[in-house]
């Protein structure tokens, strides 16, 4: 395994960035941003993994069972919430762009600016 999960992180992030660069539609671009952010979940959970560790919930496993790091899992939760908030705001900006300029194409939208 070694470095493999971190290669996945780099791959997911670069694929998302490629999507943002080449996108011709704001909604598609927002989805690509979600893909970029997904790479941070993989990174957080990958960093905190402990070989053979259980989930950090001691409801039905004995206390002091070896478990994965719960701190990065809490951070991943924060990450998800922030992503939901960012996505909601970006979607509302996309709606306003469509209303004002009648297009969702970023290259066409760039022409409206001075």
């Amino acid at each position, binding site marked *: 395994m070694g470095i493999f999960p971190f290669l996945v992180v780099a791959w997911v992030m670069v694929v998302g960035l490629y999507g943002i660069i080449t996108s011709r539609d704001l909604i598609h671009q927002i989805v690509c941003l979600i893909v970029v952010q997904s790479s941070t979940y993989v990174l957080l959970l990958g960093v905190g993994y402990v070989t053979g560790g259980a989930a950090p*919930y001691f*409801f039905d496993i004995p206390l*002091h069972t070896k478990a994965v790091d*719960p701190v990065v899992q809490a951070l991943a939760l924060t990450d998800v919430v922030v992503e939901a908030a960012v996505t*909601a705001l970006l979607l509302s900006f996309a709606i306003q762009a469509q209303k004002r300029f009648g297009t969702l194409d970023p290259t066409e939208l760039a022409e409206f600016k001075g």
Partner: protein
Amino acid sequence: MTPRQRLWFFAVAAAGLVACYLWAFAGLPGFGGYPGPYGQEILRVAVRQTNATGVVSAINFDYRGFDTVGEEFILFAAAAGMSVVLRKLREERETEPADEAGSRTVPPSSSAVRVAALLMVGPTAVLGWWLASHAQTSPSGGFQGGVILASAFILIYLAGEFLSFRRLSPDALLDAVEAAGAGGFVAIGLAAIAMNLPYLDNFLPLGTIPGAVSSSGTIALISFFVGIEVAAAFTAIVGELLDQTLLRSA
């Protein structure tokens, strides 16, 4: 810049980024060998200190509860920001939902879809409520439960009842619930200060059995407040987006 030039520019930048990334990863402890002392220390003491068997919730709502206040207000601010960005503009007015292309025949949504969606409303609401109120025992919590609670409302819309969706979630009610959820979290922290304890200190009785719903003191209470705040915020966000379909430029 032509799209082609931009792609080349991106290829060079991405190659540099990936190189730096891999260089950084080479210095990380191998996958599965995380040596961070903080997480292991919390695993050792959390259940004893809080009587919560869900250590992730114990971290979110107790150890780093102050961060989670900020996290909750990010969502609060996003919902508020959305209603500002999507406010009714001067040249817009709200229209009654009407078929704008009368010549086009729209197949009505099938009864199977409508019945399935309506049947799922109840179980979804119960599941969301259960998750929001069991943060202290199992992998759940206010954020997850709140989103599922909100999706119970969205199922009503899916069942083809846009007007019922809006009637069940009037803006005034959503605003009040959202404010109560966000304010409740802050108030719990202030209550601790009033008792001469640090902000958000766990001042409620912890119960006797780890993992019981009544255990874990303020963790369960904060998770409940977060749950209703998140449910209201997401219902408001979806409602804002759906309302846009009723706005027309005059």
